[in-house]
C-alpha cells in the first residue's frame, strides 16, 4: 500500500517527452500543415473582408430569405443581427471567427463522417473509438491548447486543431448511430438485391442516415463556435479575443457586446445549417432547389470576390512588411504594445498584435512565430521563462526602468505594513491574477518562505477579476491582499501601499525588457532598431493606462500619447 504512495508515477514527464518527440519528429509535417492552413484561412478571411460588409449582409439576408422558404423571421433577424455587429465595429472579428468555425467544421466533417461509418460497420472499431470520444469530450478544452501550440505555434491553425478535437465527437457519434439505426429490413433488402458495400452506402445508408448525421454536424458547428473563445488564448483571431480581454480587464460592457455578437453568429449558423436538414415532403423539392441555388451562388460570389481581390490588391505581399507583436492582456502591456504599434504603423509597417498567455508569448517568440514583445519583466518576475527560452530569444534590454511588484493592501489596513505582519486578515486569501503570470510564481515562493503565510491561499483568476475584487473590497472598506505591480492605474485610482518584502521574494528592482526573436535584426533591421530604442517612463505608461481605464480604446489612447510626445517618438524612429 505504502509503495503506491512513495513513488509518484512520472506521467507528466512521459506526456511531455512524447509530445516533444512528436514535435521534433513531425516538425516538417506540422510546419507544412501550419503553412497550408494559414494560407487557406487567410485567403478566406481576406476574401470575405474584401467584400463590402453591407453588400455581404444584404446577400446573406437574401439567402436566408430563400432558404427559410420565404418567411420573414430568419432574414430579419439575420439583417438586424449582422448590422448590429457591423455597427459595433466587430466585422473583422466576425469574419475571422466565421472562417475558424467554417474550417474547423469542415475538417471535423471530413474526418468525422468516414470515422462514424467505419464505427457503424465494425464493432471492434466502435469498441476502440467510443472511449476515445468520451475522453475527447470530457477532457477540458484548455488541455488541447497546450499540444496545439507545441505542434502549430500560435494563431488560427492551432485554434482549428483544438476546435476539431473538441467538436469532432458529435459528428462521429451521430453518424455511427444513424447508420446503426437504419431498420434491419432495409439493409437486408439492399443486400438481398445484391448491392456492393459501396452501392449500399451511397444509395441506402447515407440517404437514410442523412438527417441524423446533419443533426450531429449541427452540434459540431456549435461546439466549434464555443471553442472560439478558448482558442483566442493561443492567438486565434476573432470575437473570442474581445471576450477574453474583457474578462481580463473585467470590462462587462465590451464582454457582453462580443458575447452577443457570438450569440448572433451562432443562431444564424445554426438556422442555416438546419435548413439543409429537412424531412422528405413535397415541399422539400422546392427547398432543396433553394439550397442548391444558394450554395452555388455563395460559391460563385466567393470565387468572384477572391479573383477581384487578387486583381485589385495584386499579390498579398503589399507595400508594408508585417511586424508581429505579441503581448499579455495586462493593462501595462496593452498600453506599451499599442503605443509601439502606432509608432510602427506610422513608419509604414503593418502590425499584427496577438494577445497570448504569458508562457505562450515567450514560447512563440522563441519559436520565431512572432517578432517581438515589449513585456518581459526581468530579472525576477519572468525568471522561469527567461531561463527556459534565453537561448532562443534576443534580449534588447529595458524599455521601462524601475517597475516594482509585490503584495499590496489598501492604506486603511493600518496594522499591516510588511508581509510578515499578515496573520488572518482578508480570510487568509491573496487575490492573484492569471496562474501563468510571473508575479504568481513569486507569490508562491513567498508563501513557502514566510512561515506566517503557511495557512494562506493564493487565489488565481485574471487581472480584471483582481481589480474588480479590489474595487469592491475598497468600496466596502473590507480587508484585501492583492498581487500588484506598478506602473498600474490602480495606484492612481485607490490609496494602496506595498507590503515590505524583507526576504526579497518579489525581487527588488525590476525592469520591463523588450525581447525579439532571433534573426529579427537580420530580417528587419529598421524594426529591430525601433524596438531597441523604444523606452519610456512610468508616468508615460500610467497616463496611457488611465485613458484606457476611463473608457478610451487602447488604440485611441496610444494615438493620443504618440501625438503628444513627438520628440520622444522621434528619438526612437530617427534613422541616425
Amino acid at each position, binding site marked *: 500500500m505504502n509503495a503506491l504512495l512513495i513513488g509518484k508515477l512520472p506521467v507528466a514527464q512521459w506526456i511531455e517527452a512524447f509530445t516533444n518527440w512528436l514535435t521534433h519528429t513531425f516538425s516538417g509535417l506540422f510546419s507544412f500543415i501550419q503553412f497550408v492552413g494559414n494560407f487557406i484561412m487567410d485567403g478566406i478571411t481576406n476574401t470575405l473582408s474584401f467584400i463590402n460588409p453591407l453588400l455581404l449582409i444584404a446577400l446573406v439576408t437574401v439567402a436566408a430569405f430563400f432558404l427559410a422558404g420565404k418567411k420573414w423571421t430568419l432574414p430579419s433577424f439575420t439583417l438586424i443581427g449582422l448590422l448590429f455587429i457591423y455597427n459595433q465595429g466587430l466585422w473583422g472579428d466576425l469574419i475571422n471567427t466565421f472562417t475558424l468555425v467554417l474550417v474547423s467544421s469542415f475538417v471535423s466533417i471530413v474526418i468525422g463522417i468516414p470515422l462514424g461509418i467505419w464505427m457503424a460497420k465494425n464493432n471492434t472499431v466502435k469498441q476502440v473509438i467510443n472511449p476515445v470520444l468520451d475522453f475527447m469530450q470530457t477532457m477540458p478544452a484548455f488541455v488541447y491548447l497546450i499540444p496545439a501550440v507545441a505542434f502549430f505555434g500560435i494563431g488560427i491553425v492551432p485554434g482549428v486543431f483544438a476546435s476539431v478535437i473538441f467538436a469532432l465527437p458529435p459528428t462521429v457519434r451521430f453518424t455511427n448511430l444513424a447508420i446503426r439505426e437504419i431498420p434491419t429490413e432495409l439493409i437486408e*433488402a439492399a443486400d438481398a*438485391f445484391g448491392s456492393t458495400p459501396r452501392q449500399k452506402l451511397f444509395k441506402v445508408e447515407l440517404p437514410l442516415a442523412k438527417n441524423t448525421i446533419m443533426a450531429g454536424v449541427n452540434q459540431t458547428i456549435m461546439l466549434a463556435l464555443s471553442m472560439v473563445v478558448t482558442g483566442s488564448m493561443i492567438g486565434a483571431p476573432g470575437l473570442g479575443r474581445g471576450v477574453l480581454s474583457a474578462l481580463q480587464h473585467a470590462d462587462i460592457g465590451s464582454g457582453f457586446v462580443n458575447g452577443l455578437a457570438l450569440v448572433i453568429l451562432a443562431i444564424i449558423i445554426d438556422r442555416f445549417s438546419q435548413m439543409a436538414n429537412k424531412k422528405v415532403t413535397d415541399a422539400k423539392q422546392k427547398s432543396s432547389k433553394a439550397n442548391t441555388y444558394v450554395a452555388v451562388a455563395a460559391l460563385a460570389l466567393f470565387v468572384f470576390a477572391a479573383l477581384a481581390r487578387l486583381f485589385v490588391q495584386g499579390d498579398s505581399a503589399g507595400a508594408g512588411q508585417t511586424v508581429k507583436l505579441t503581448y499579455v492582456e495586462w493593462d501595462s502591456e496593452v498600453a506599451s504594445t499599442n503605443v509601439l504599434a502606432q509608432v510602427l504603423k506610422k513608419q509604414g509597417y503593418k502590425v499584427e498584435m496577438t494577445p497570448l498567455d504569458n508562457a505562450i508569448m515567450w514560447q512563440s517568440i522563441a519559436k520565431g512565430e512572432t517578432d517581438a514583445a515589449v513585456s518581459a519583466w526581468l530579472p525576477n518576475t519572468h525568471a522561469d521563462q527567461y531561463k527556459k527560452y534565453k537561448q532562443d530569444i534576443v534580449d534588447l534590454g529595458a524599455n521601462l526602468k524601475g517597475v516594482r511588484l509585490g503584495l499590496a493592501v489598501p492604506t486603511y489596513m493600518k496594522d499591516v505594513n510588511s508581509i510578515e505582519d499578515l496573520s488572518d486578515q482578508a480570510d487568509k486569501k491573496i487575490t492573484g491574477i492569471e496562474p501563468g503570470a510571473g508575479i504568481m510564481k513569486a507569490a508562491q515562493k513567498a508563501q513557502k518562505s514566510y512561515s506566517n503565510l503557511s495557512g494562506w491561499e493564493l487565489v488565481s483568476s485574471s487581472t480584471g477579476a483582481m481589480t474588480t475584487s479590489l474595487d469592491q473590497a475598497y468600496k466596502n472598506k473590507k480587508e484585501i491582499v492583492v498581487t500588484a505591480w506598478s506602473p498600474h492605474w490602480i495606484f492612481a485610482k485607490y490609496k494602496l501601499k506595498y507590503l515590505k518584502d524583507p526576504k526579497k521574494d518579489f525581487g527588488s528592482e525590476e525592469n520591463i525588457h523588450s525581447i525579439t526573436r532571433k534573426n529579427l535584426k537580420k530580417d528587419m533591421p529598421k524594426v529591430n532598431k525601433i524596438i531597441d530604442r523604444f523606452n519610456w517612463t512610468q508616468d508615460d505608461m500610467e497616463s496611457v493606462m488611465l485613458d484606457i481605464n476611463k473608457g478610451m480604446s487602447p488604440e485611441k489612447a496610444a494615438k493620443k500619447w504618440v501625438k503628444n510626445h513627438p520628440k520622444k517618438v522621434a528619438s526612437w524612429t530617427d534613422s541616425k
Partner: protein
Amino acid sequence: MNKLEVKHLTKIFGKKQKAALEMIKQQKSKTEILEQTGATVGVYDVSFDVKEGEVFVIMGLSGSGKSTLIRLLNRLIEPSSGDIYINGSDISKMNAEELREVRRHALNMVFQNFGLFPHKTILENTEFGLELRGVPKEERVELAERALDNSNLLAFKDQYPNQLSGGMQQRVGLARALANDPEILLMDEAFSALDPLIRKEMQDELLDLQEKVQKTIIFITHDLNEALRIGDRIALMKDGQIMQIGTGEEILTKPANDFVREFVEDVDRSKVLTAQNIMIKPLTTLIGVDGPQVALTRMHNEEVSMLMATDRRRQLVGSVTAEAAIEARRKGVPLADVVDRDVRTVSKDTVITDIMPLIYDSAAPIAVTDDNNRLLGVIIKGRVIEALANTKEDAEEGGEE
C-alpha cells in the same frame, strides 16, 4: 428438375460453434447443446429440395427458425454448415462477387414489412435491383413501369412509400422483386403485416401471378390457412428442425408426429370437449340499433345468410335470417319485428355429446350463452361432427397402443 436443393443446412448463433456442430452430428437435442456450450441452434440440420415453378411454403410458430432458414438461402445469414445448390451450383461456397451475381439475377426477396426505401419514390424503389445491376436508365424505367403496371400501381409511381396503404406497399415490394425477373422468389411472411381482408386479396393475386410467371417461390408463413391456400408443398418447422414435408392434404391426413397434429388441429384434445372448445365467434346484429339494411350488408360481407341478434348489453335476443331481413326492408319495419326468438342455447360447459341431439333438428346454429344470457359464441354443425369424428379416432388409436 430441382431448382433448389438444401443439404444438412445448420445455423448456430453464439460461441463455441465447433463444439455445437459436433453435437449436432451426434444428434444431440437443442436444449442439450444450449446447456453444454451456450450456443443457440437456429436451424438444425435441414434438408429439402424445391422443384422448378413450385410454391414451397415453410410454416412454423415464431421462434421455429423459419425466418433464419430463408435468410440462409440467400446468405443474408451465413450458414454454419451445409450446402445450398441453386441450379446445381453451391452458393454456400461462393465468394462475395459470385454471390452478388446470384442475388442480382436468381434470387430476390419480399419482406414482411415491405422493406421499401422511404427516401425513394415507388418507381425508384421498383427499379432498385436493376439499378444495382447497372441496367441503363431508360431500360430499367421501362421494366419497372411494366412491373408496376402488372400490379395496377403505375399511377402511384412518383409517390413515396409512406403515402401508400400497406397492401399497395407490399405490391410494390413484389413488383420490385419481379422487375428483376428472378428465378426464385423468397417471401418472408410477406402478408403477415397486412389486415386479413387485404391478405386474402394478396394471396389471390399471388396465385394469379404465379399462373402467369411460373416462378419458384419459397413462402414463409405462420398461418396454416395461408399455407394451405397457396402452397404446393408445405414444410412444417419446429425448433429449427423440419418436422414434415408434404402437400397440404398429406400434412392434414397423415401427420408425422404429435406436434404436427396439434399444429394443424389447433385443438387441445387431452380434455373432454365442451361447447367452449368448438364454438366460433358469433356474427351478430344489434337489435334496436341496426336496421335491416345494415344486417344484410353484414351478411353479404361475411358471406353468411344468418346473424345472431343481441341487444345493447349483448344479451341474446334471437336470430335473423336473410329472408327475414329482406322482408323487413320491404315492409319498412325494424329488425325486432322479424327476429326469430326461438334459438337453442347451451352453456359453455355443455359437453359435445349433449349438444349432438340439439344440432340435428336445428337449422340455425346453437348459441352459447353465459348465466346472464350473454352471447359468447355459436356452434355450427360441421364443427361438432368433426370434433366427434376425431375423438373417436383417438380413442381407437389409443386402444391399439
